[in-house]
C-alpha cells in the first residue's frame, strides 16, 4: 500500500518536474491529482469502501497525508510559478530609458510677462501696488504734467506716435504717476507696468516695448532710499552680490536724475563681453521726483518727496535670458517661447 503512495508521490514530483512550465500547466497538473472529482488522490479516497475495514484507518490516514503532501507541493509550485511569471512579465516590459520622453504639453507665459511677474513679486513685498495705465494717452499726462512742456527739447528724446493733436501712444509709463497722484494721497507706492511706443525700429529698438515704472511718495524720501531699494531689486532679479551704481543723467520728471548701472552678473564686474569690458550694465533710469511734478498733481512738495524709476522690460528680459534680438520677443516663434520657462 505504501508503495502506491510512494509511486503517486513520485508521479507528482515527476509531473512537477516535467509538465509544469507555466501556472496554467501547474493548475492542470494539480487538477490531475487533487480535483475533487477527477483527481487521482480523490479517486483513491473513493476506493476506501473497497478496502478491508481493518486497513481502512491506515489507508485513510495515508491518503490524507498524501493529499496534504501534494497540496503543499502544488502550493510551493504555484509560488514558484508566480514568481517566475512576474519575473518574465517584468523582463518583457524592459525599456530603453534613454529613449525620448513623451512631451508634456504645458505652455509658458511670455518672457516679458515672466520678467514682469518677477519684478512685481519683489516690489509687492515692499508694499507696492500694481497699477496699469492705458496705452493711448493725451499730451498733458504723457508730457506736460511730467514737466515736459510743448517746446521742451526732451520731447525729442522720445519720438512720439500721434493719433491726433491731443492724443498719442504713451511714450513712457510715467503718465501713470500723474494718474495715481491725482487720485491718491501719500503714502504712495506703485508699480506701473505697461506697453509704450516710440517711432524707432531696428535691431535694438521696437516701436512697441514694455516699461515698468515705480513711484514712491512719502515724507523724507531721498536718493539713499532709491539706492537701497534698487540694490534689493537687482539682488532678487540678478542674484545675491549684485550691486548698483548711480550716475548723473537727465529726465524732465526727476531732479536729480540718474542712470542706474548694475554690476555685471555674468563676470561679477571683472569685465566681459556682456558688459563690454566695463563691469557694469545700464539697466534703468531713476531719480527724485521733480517737485514740479508733485505740484502739478496737487501734492505738497514741502512736506512730501518721492522717488521714481523706470525699467525697460525687454532689456531686463534679454539680459537675464541672453536673448540677442528684441524682435524675437514679438514674433511668437514657438521655438523661442518654449525656451523661457521661468514661469
Amino acid at each position, binding site marked *: 500500500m505504501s508503495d502506491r503512495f510512494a509511486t503517486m508521490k513520485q508521479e507528482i514530483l515527476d509531473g512537477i518536474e516535467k509538465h509544469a512550465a507555466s501556472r496554467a500547466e501547474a493548475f492542470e497538473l494539480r487538477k490531475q491529482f487533487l480535483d475533487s472529482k477527477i483527481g487521482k488522490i480523490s479517486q483513491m479516497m473513493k476506493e476506501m469502501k473497497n478496502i478491508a475495514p481493518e486497513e481502512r484507518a491506515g489507508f485513510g490516514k495515508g491518503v490524507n497525508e498524501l493529499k496534504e503532501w501534494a497540496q503543499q507541493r502544488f502550493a510551493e509550485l504555484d509560488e514558484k510559478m508566480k514568481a517566475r511569471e512576474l519575473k518574465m512579465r517584468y523582463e518583457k516590459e524592459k525599456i530603453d530609458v534613454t529613449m525620448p520622453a513623451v512631451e508634456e*504639453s*504645458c*505652455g509658458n*507665459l*511670455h518672457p516679458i*510677462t515672466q520678467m514682469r*511677474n518677477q519684478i*512685481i513679486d519683489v516690489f*509687492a513685498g515692499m*508694499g*507696492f501696488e*500694481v497699477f496699469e495705465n*492705458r*496705452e493711448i494717452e*493725451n499730451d498733458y499726462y504723457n508730457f506736460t504734467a511730467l514737466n515736459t512742456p*510743448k*517746446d521742451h*527739447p*526732451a520731447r*525729442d*528724446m522720445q519720438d512720439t*506716435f*500721434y*493719433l*491726433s493733436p491731443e*492724443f498719442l*501712444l504713451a511714450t513712457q509709463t510715467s503718465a501713470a504717476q500723474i494718474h495715481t497722484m491725482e487720485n491718491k494721497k501719500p503714502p504712495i*507706492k506703485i508699480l506701473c507696468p505697461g506697453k509704450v*511706443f516710440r*517711432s524707432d525700429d531696428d535691431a535694438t529698438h521696437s*516701436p*512697441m516695448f514694455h516699461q515698468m515704472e515705480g513711484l514712491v511718495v*512719502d515724507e*523724507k*524720501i*531721498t*536718493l*539713499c*532710499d532709491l*539706492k*537701497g*531699494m534698487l*540694490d*534689493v531689486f537687482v539682488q532678487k532679479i540678478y542674484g545675491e552680490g549684485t550691486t548698483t*551704481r*548711480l*550716475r*548723473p*543723467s*537727465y529726465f524732465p520728471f526727476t531732479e*536729480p536724475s540718474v542712470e542706474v548701472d548694475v554690476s555685471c552678473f555674468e563676470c561679477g564686474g571683472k569685465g566681459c563681453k556682456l558688459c563690454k569690458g566695463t563691469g557694469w550694465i545700464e539697466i534703468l533710469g531713476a531719480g*527724485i521726483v*521733480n517737485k514740479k511734478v508733485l505740484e502739478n498733481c496737487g501734492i505738497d512738495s514741502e512736506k512730501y518727496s518721492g522717488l521714481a524709476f523706470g525699467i525697460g522690460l525687454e532689456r531686463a528680459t534679454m539680459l537675464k535670458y541672453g536673448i540677442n534680438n528684441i524682435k524675437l520677443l*514679438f514674433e*511668437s*516663434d*514657438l*521655438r523661442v*517661447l518654449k525656451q523661457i520657462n521661468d*514661469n
Partner: protein
Amino acid sequence: MLVPLSWLKEYVDINITPQELEKKLFSCGFEVEELYEVGKEISNVVVGYVEECEPIPETHLHVCQVNAGAHGTFQVCCGADNVVKGGKFPVALVGATVYMTAKDHKTVEGTMTIKKGKLRGYESEGMLCSGVELGVSENMYPGAGYNGLLVLSEDAEIGADVKPILGLDDWIFDVSITANRPDCQSILGLAREVAAVLNQPLKAPSLEYTETEMEKEGFRVTVDAPDLCPRYIGHYVYDVKIGESPLWMKRRLALVGQDSISNIVDITNYVMLEMGQPMHAFDCNYLEGNEIKVRRAGEGEKIVTLDSQEYSLTSNNLVICDGIKPVALAGVMGGLNSEIRDTTAAVMFESAKFARDNIRKTSRGLGKRTDASARYEKDVDEYATVHAMKRALHLVEELGCGKVSGTHVDVNTGNSVEPREMKVSLRKVNDVLGIEVPEQDVLRIMKNLNFAPAINGDELTLQVPAYREDMDSYPDVAEEVIRMYGYEHVEPAFMPAALVTMGGMNEKQKKELHLKKALCSAGAFECIHYSFFSPSDLDLLRLPEEAPERNTIRILNPINEELSLMRTTLAASMLNAIARNQKKGNLEGRLFELGKKFIPKELPLNDYPDERDTLCIGVFGEKESFFTLKGLAEKVAETLYLKFDYETGEKTFLHPYQTATIFCQGVEIGYLGKVAYEVAEQLDLRTSAYLLEIDMKTVSERKADKATFVPLSRFPEESRDLALVMNKEITCGQVEDVIRKSCNNIKGIRLFDVYEGEQIPRDKKSMAFKVDFVPGEEAFEADSVDKFVKKILKNLKFHLDIDLRS
C-alpha cells in the same frame, strides 16, 4: 559732440590721461560714447632729412640716404616725384605702422608695418610718407593733400616724432550732452565742467576787439516776430579780405569733421563749436535796403539755401530778410543769395537766439538738420549770444581779415535771461540726497561751477550764471552738488521714515494672471503682438466696408503703413503669428494673447478711446479641431467661474459651418471657429488653424459664480446611456437643453457617440448621451431613475421628435 583734447586744453589745464578724464566726465554726467586717438594707427614715424637723393636709372624711383637723427641714417627707396635732396619728410622706420594705400595713392586700404626691403636691387630700410599714408589732410597740415611726399617745414627737428607736428598726438572725445545742458553743447561749455571737476581755473578765450569809427549809415534791424526771436545781434565788418584760415583754426575744424571754407565762414563755424552759438555772416553787397528784418515767412515764399536747395515756406517758418527778400532760413541755414564769396568786401555777422520749438518744427518740416538747428533745438543761452559776437569780432581782428565797424545792432525783445541770485536751504539740499555733504565741499563745488556761493546759517546764496537757465530750485542744486561730490557717497537706505503700505496685484490683475496660467497649463504659449496693425490685415480678415473693425484709429505718423492702425481685433496678429510659425516649420502649437483692442468713441479722437481687454487664442496642427479649441474656451469659462453657451455663428474669415458665437449669460462675448480655407491659403498655412476671440471687458461685467462647496450626496448616484435617433439638423445643444429641463436631478449630460449609417434610417442620425442623476434629500427609489428617463424621452419626442434607438 566731438571734443578734441587739444582744444579743451586751451581753456583748462588737464594733467590726467584721456582715459582718466573720460571717467571724470562720466561721473559728473557726461557720457563719453567714444574716445579715440587721432593718430592711433601711426607709430615710429619721425622727421627725416634727405642727405642724398639719386635717381635709379630707367625707373621713377630715387634712392635716398635719410638722416633720422638719433634713430640713425637709412637708405630708403622712394617713388614720389617731390623727393629732393635737402628736404625734410616724414620717414617711417622699420617696424613703423602707417596706412596702406591703393594704387591711386589716395584710397586707404588698412594699415601696414614697414619692413626691410629691396627695390630694383637697392636695399630700402623705411619709407618716406605722404599725407594720406599718415592720415593727415590738407586742413591738418598744409601740403598734406599733395599726391606725393608730405613736406615738413625746414625748422622741423630731425629725428623728432612727427605726430605732434602733424596734430596726430590728439584724442577725440565723443560726448553725449543731456537735454538739460544746452550750455555744454560747445567746447568751452564742456571745458567749464572739466575745470570744475578737475578743480582748475577756466581760461576764457579773449573777447577783446577794437571798433573803428566807421559806421554803416542808416542800417536797421527789426524783429517782427519777437516770440520766435528773443534776441538778435548784428555787427558790420568792412575791409574784408577773404582768404584761408590759419593752420590752428583749420586743424581744429578738421578734428571735429568741419571743412575749412574761408576765413570769414570758418570764424562763424569756429565760434559755434567753441561757444555753442550758431553764427552767420551775410555778404553786405547782396543785402538790399540796408536792413535786416526777422519775420515769419509768407505762405509759399521761396528760399534757396547755401546748399542750392529750394524750399517753399509757410508762416510757421522764420526767415531773416533784407529790405526785399529772405536771405536766411533762421536758425537752420543761410541763403545762397547772400553767401560769402571770394569777392566779399563787407559782412554782417549775426548772433541770435531763436525759439527752440520753432527751429525744431522748421527743421523737421523741411527735413533739414544742420549743426546750427541741432543747437537751437536744444536751446542756446543768451550768455553765448552776446559773447559769441564779441568772440567772432575778436577773431576777425586776430586773423586780420577785416575791420570791426562801430555799427552794432542789438535787438532785445525783453525776454533776455540775466544772471540772477538764488537762495536755497542747505538742509533741503541734503534732504534730497539723504546724506550730509560738508559745507566746505558744497562751497568748493558751487564755486568751481561759477555760482559764487555764500553760506549763512542754513541759507546757501548762489549767483546763477546766465548760461544755467536750467537752475531753478534746491533739487537742481542737490544734483549739481552730488554729481561733483560723487554718487558713490550715496549710501543705501530703506525708507526709514515711510509709512507701511499694502502691496500686490488687485483682483483683476490676479484673475488675468490666473487665466494666463490656466491656458499655459493647457499647453498654450503666451504671445505679445504690436498694438497696431496694417490695413491689409483688415483685408486678410475679409471684413466688409461697413464692418465695425474697420472703424480704426490711425496713427498720424506711422513708421510704415503696416503699423499704421490701432487694432480693433487681435485675430489678424494671431493669424500672422501662426503663419510665421508654419513658415519656420512649427506645424502645430497653441498660442494666446491677452491684449487690447481700441474702439474710438469718435474720429478724429477727442476723447480717450475704449481700450478693451481681449483674449485671442490660436491653435493649429493635425491634433487640433474645433472641439479642442472649444475645450480651451471651456477652460476659460471654468477659470472665471462662468458658463459659456455656443450657437452656430459666422465670421468672414472663418469656416461657414465650423464657427460658433460664444455667449455668456445671454450676452455675446466672442467667437471661435476654423480658419477659412481661402484665408489659410493666402497665409500658406499647411495645417488647419482655429481661432477664438473673447471680449474680456464684456466677460468681466458678467456676474461670476463663487468658488463654493456643494455637499456630496449621501446616496449613490446613477447614470443611464440614452441612444437617440433624430433628424440630422437637430443639434447636441438642443437635445441637452430638453434633457436638462426634463428633470431636476440631472447632474451631468455628456454626448459620447454620434452615428449615421446603415443601422438607422438614411435621413436620421443617432446621438448617444450619458446622463448622470444625483439624488436629493432622499435616496432614489428602485424605479425613480426609470421614471426620469421616461419623462425625458417623452419630452424629446414631443419637442424634437426624437426616438430611443431600438
